[in-house]
């Protein structure tokens, strides 16, 4: 892939808070110190009103844009959308992307050292929620000297975080961009997450999460990732991209070793994932996604949950996304409409399924850039 218009010269930075413990989690436990890995792109203006917090999905990290090594490779997970002249325009706005608590890309998570034991937390790590992730990000935003964010934006789990931000810190965000997400995950989604977790747990190397000094449960994590990838694609997209093609051209003999292109793709994704992701983190973060339910913020009612929200919303769904279907996004939109919030909702026609938010899409690009431009104009009078 050729990388153009990417913010250059990037490094991942680390912010640590609650040095002596005391970051209270929703589960009732308290941890600290907590470190968040983060990257920033663009320039924070003197009024500090052009900051946008980018929120990543399950397998994402702080590296959202640009190439942060000298090789010019390894573009950020949302590099197509963040950069000079891109929908999230680094010439105009200042972007922050932080890795979530519970993650494994430089932030405090199950692979971090438990200060009390001097060993990795493993499954002793407290259970974290989407709200805990958001509360941790709050400390980072404050540390960066930002009183109010122009926007929070994310897709999938990132969209869940964006919605959570609007409820937990209504005064701190001007607008909320939520893509391919919902107020809670469907039973089907939970089912797929559970199969992924079981793949890890049943890997003999997993050893109840205590594998940091021995063999990594790579087979399990790889399988979990393969299952995940199936849910990110639409049937049509999968068919058109892979069809029934074989990986190698000279498939004269069919045998058990022969491989369809789709198999090869999934294997590749699985193996690639093992190199950069921690198996325990996968368990913790999928759990956070499963437990996420904004109805809980409103005593069982979504309208009550959004009552205090002050942000203006851009909600986007994709018509072929069966993991977070349009009908689920509409429930959020409905609650926002009933409570009188300013909300844009667009269901985008695409064949790319859930993954569409990561891929080039003219309508999505236009909606994001227009929304951001207008929200900046409205909030600053510029």
């Amino acid at each position: 892939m050729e990388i153009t218009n990417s913010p250059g010269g990037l490094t991942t930075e680390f912010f640590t808070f609650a040095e002596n413990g005391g970051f209270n989690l929703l589960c009732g436990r308290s941890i600290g110190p907590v470190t968040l890995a983060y990257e920033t792109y663009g320039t924070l203006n003197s009024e500090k009103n052009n900051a946008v917090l980018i929120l990543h999905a399950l397998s994402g990290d702080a590296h959202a844009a640009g190439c942060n090594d000298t090789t010019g490779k390894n573009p950020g997970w949302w590099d197509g959308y963040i950069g000079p002249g891109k929908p999230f325009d680094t010439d105009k706005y200042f972007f922050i992307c932080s890795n979530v608590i519970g993650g494994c890309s430089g932030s405090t998570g199950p692979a971090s050292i438990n200060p009390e034991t001097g060993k990795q937390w493993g499954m002793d790590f407290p259970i974290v929620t989407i709200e805990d992730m958001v509360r941790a990000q709050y400390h980072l935003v404050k540390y960066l000297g930002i009183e109010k964010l122009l926007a929070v934006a994310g897709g999938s789990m990132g969209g869940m975080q964006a919605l959570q931000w609007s409820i937990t810190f209504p005064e701190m965000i001007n607008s909320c961009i939520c893509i391919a997400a919902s107020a809670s995950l469907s039973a089907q989604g939970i089912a797929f997450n559970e199969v992924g977790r079981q793949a890890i747990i049943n890997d003999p190397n997993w050893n109840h999460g205590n594998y940091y000094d021995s063999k990594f449960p790579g087979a399990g994590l790889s399988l979990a990732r393969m299952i995940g990838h199936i849910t990110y694609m639409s049937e049509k997209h999968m068919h058109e991209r892979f069809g029934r093609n074989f990986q190698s051209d000279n498939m004269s003999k069919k045998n058990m070793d022969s491989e369809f292109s789709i198999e090869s793709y999934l294997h590749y994704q699985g193996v690639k994932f093992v190199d950069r992701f921690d198996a325990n983190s996968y368990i913790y973060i999928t759990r956070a996604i499963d437990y996420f339910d904004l109805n809980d913020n409103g005593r069982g009612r979504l309208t009550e949950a959004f009552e205090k929200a002050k942000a203006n919303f851009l909600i986007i769904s994709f018509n072929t996304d069966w993991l977070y279907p349009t009908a689920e996004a509409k429930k959020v939109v409905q609650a926002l409409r009933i409570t009188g919030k300013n909300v844009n909702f667009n269901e985008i026609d695409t064949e790319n399924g859930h993954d569409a938010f990561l891929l080039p899409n003219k309508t999505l690009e236009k909606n994001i850039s227009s929304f951001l431009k207008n929200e900046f104009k409205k909030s600053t009078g510029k």
Partner: protein
Amino acid sequence: MKYQRIGYDLVINEIDKGSKVLDLGCGDGVLLEMLQDEKDVKGSGVEISEEGVTMCVEKGLYCYQGDIDEGLSDYLDNSFDFVIINQTIQNTKRPDHVIEEVLRIGRRVILSFPNFGYISTRFSLLLLGRMPVNRLLPYEWYESPNIHLLTIKDFRNMSKKFRFRIVREKGFCFTSGKKSRIRRLIPNLFSQYGFFVIEKIS
């Protein structure tokens, strides 16, 4: 898609300054934008097409992608000062349900629609024996989005059964880019379009 600006001047004229407005079938959002500029309204729209919503977002409007036939029930009673259905009611599957819903959610409802009683339309059917295809109704019967055609008289007659009061009734003609021209003489015969402002009888 090209959006015509039929009856915008008449609609804008009815809206009070600073009111809360919902535009059903808002298209590219030009009417809402004009209402914001001229009447300082707090407006939002519902639009069925992805392109329409995208154009609304571009203008800084708030717009919900949806089918009017499917979703108005989530709005609370009297959520809006005005609900606009400009050149859209004839496209809906159940105009009766839509009328009931808009009367519920809006204090006042502003409608305009192509008048099937218009003279040249009548001629086409009466003399040529064919469904009219003209500037007003520019589609062949098999491709027309206009699935519920009505006349000014038809709409007027709805008021009793659907328990609404007609605040204002006009017939008008429109040539694109120009102002609406009111037809006072036998409006149901000489008007291309019907225009109504209605409110529920409580």
